[in-house]
């Protein structure tokens, strides 16, 4: 841990960070709970059918998990802003306005879903008015980000570019996803579906920018290497990511009868990911040795898990972007595997790295006391995710095979049951693993901060004193 970082103004930033961390973890806990209920509904068709049907559990799961990603990214950025800019947060009350608006909107949306009020659009299944509240809740965040940092983009590190891009494109894509309210978009199915895929695809890119930017920032802080985030190579991959954010969505629309060149652009952009893939392969040895060297650092361990999932999901993304294969994989659980691999394996691991980095910086003693549980939670989650991810791929293959043999939907679902069971059971373990991480985070947040003087412990069997290891 670097010394001299606990400036007095930081303490004013701690409370909102704590509030956002707790809110984000609550979103995650509820999100996986509803995901689990949805999974059970796959293997027990009548389960909660009349009280909380899949029509409700799915939007609850999707909304809460997306909120977890955004909210945990906000928590980190609010914490890192004063550290980077060496200034207090520009508009302290704005942070609380953001928090209150966000919490109130969530409460209305969750109650609405439980009561059966829907907007019925993928990802944004709440009534359209709620979209406006979400938009408004982001305004104080954006003001605070730019007014606190006052970024000079000529010299800014890549993570500031990524966060700025994430914020800008969140506003753009959220607005774009409500274009359907106009007749021009709503009354043309092809246009409506294409724009919906376009907006949602880029929105995923916007949250990836926030999350990956966070990952790069904490990597910089842990390694102490400030050059990496300013190197041309980092910017090359940033621009590659930005190009994909803007144009890669098209590979979802191969089956939509839009103009043929939309598919050509989509395919060409998707294949630029091969550059990223090639780079990962080239850097493999370096990554592995880095992981070995820093494995004792818990936040680094989460980054290593995310690295492995980036590799697996990139392979999958490249496969499903090839038009001939896309035709078969589209509409199967292979797409879900990709979504789950990225949200749990990559985004959640990076955000957990950020949360535990903050918690460790804030209360190293509490972190030390609980770090075994953090490690256990991370292992359970990732191991269970391997089974979860593989079973989704397998059920996708069953569906493809069924479609090729003209089998009925009911028959395909019957044949997929063993894999649905595996994904539900492994979902229980993901719930347990993430539950351990969430409970441990809550415990660390709630634990009182002890004096930061070195404690001399007297081990039971050894007479000599041992100094507590601050390096984790």
């Amino acid at each position, binding site marked *: 841990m670097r010394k001299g970082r606990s400036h007095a103004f930081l303490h004013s930033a701690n409370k909102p960070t704590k509030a956002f961390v707790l809110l984000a973890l609550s979103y995650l806990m509820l999100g996986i709970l509803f995901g689990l209920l949805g999974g059970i509904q796959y293997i027990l068709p009548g389960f909660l059918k*009349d009280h909380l049907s899949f029509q409700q559990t799915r939007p609850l799961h999707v909304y809460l998990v997306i909120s977890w990603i955004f909210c945990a990214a906000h928590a980190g950025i609010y914490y890192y802003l004063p550290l980077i800019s060496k200034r207090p947060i520009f508009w302290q009350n704005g942070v609380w306005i953001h928090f209150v608006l966000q919490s109130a909107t969530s409460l209305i949306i969750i109650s609405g879903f439980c009561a059966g009020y829907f907007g019925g659009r993928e990802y944004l299944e709440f009534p359209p008015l709620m979209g406006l509240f979400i938009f408004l809740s982001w305004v104080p965040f954006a003001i605070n980000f730019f007014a606190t940092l006052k970024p000079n983009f000529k010299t800014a590190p890549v993570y500031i570019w990524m966060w700025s891009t994430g914020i800008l494109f969140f506003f753009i894509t959220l607005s774009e996803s409500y274009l359907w309210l106009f007749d021009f978009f709503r009354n043309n199915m092809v246009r409506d579906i294409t724009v919906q895929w376009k907006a949602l695809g880029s929105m995923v890119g916007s949250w990836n920018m926030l999350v990956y930017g966070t990952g790069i920032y904490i990597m910089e802080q842990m390694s102490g290497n400030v050059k990496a985030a300013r190197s*041309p190579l980092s910017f*090359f991959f940033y621009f590659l990511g930005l190009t994909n954010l803007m144009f890669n969505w098209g590979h979802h629309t191969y089956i939509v*009868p839009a103009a043929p060149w939309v598919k050509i652009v989509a395919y060409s952009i998707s294949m630029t990911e091969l550059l990223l893939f090639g780079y990962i392969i080239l850097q493999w040895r370096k990554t592995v040795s880095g992981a070995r060297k820093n494995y004792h650092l818990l936040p680094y361990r989460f980054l290593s898990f995310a690295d492995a999932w980036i590799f697996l999901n990139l392979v999958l993304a490249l496969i499903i972007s090839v038009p001939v294969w896309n*035709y078969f994989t589209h509409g199967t659980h292979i797409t*879900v595997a990709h979504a789950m691999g990225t949200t749990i394996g990559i985004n959640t691991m990076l955000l957990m790295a950020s949360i535990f980095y903050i918690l460790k910086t804030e209360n190293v003693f509490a972190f030390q006391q609980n770090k075994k549980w953090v490690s256990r939670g991370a292992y359970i989650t990732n191991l269970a995710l391997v089974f979860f991810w593989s079973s989704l791929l397998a059920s996708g293959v069953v569906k493809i095979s069924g479609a090729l043999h003209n089998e009925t*939907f009911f028959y395909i679902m019957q044949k997929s049951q063993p894999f649905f069971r595996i994904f539900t059971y492994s979902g229980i373990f993901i719930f347990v693993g993430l539950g351990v991480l969430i409970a441990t985070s809550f415990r660390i947040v709630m634990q009182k901060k002890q004096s930061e003087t070195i404690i001399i412990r007297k081990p039971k069997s050894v007479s000599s004193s041992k100094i507590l290891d601050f390096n984790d």
Partner: protein
Amino acid sequence: MPGSFFISSIHKMIKQDRMKITIFLFLFIAYIVYSIIIYTKGTKEVVSVSNSEMTEISRGKLLFQQYNCTACHQLYGLGGYLGPELTTAYSDKNRGESLMRSFLKNGGAQMPDFHLREKDITALISFLKYVDKTAITYKQN
């Protein structure tokens, strides 16, 4: 190799601080222009429907959203996987209008009974019929 030449040229460009802003602005403008083309030329209407038909289709679409059918069913790949894909359900010889009507009226093993009125069922069917008509690429594949 042309690939490494391409990457090293981009490297040299990015090394200049001002170029980062220029590249960003270039991409952003390209994104705006591409979006406008997508909204217009890229997504022309593929089937023609009369105004009265469109009123019924729009009502069906709104009902489809109100009941959050997308949680279980997909249209052009958007939506959940618990229920069958509905893009071409109307013209599917194993499904078709009568089967859809029956499900909408009574529900199923997993599908709740929404207690829909007859005119709402008709509006939903009109919407799904329209979607089916637009699915030219889907059927070609």
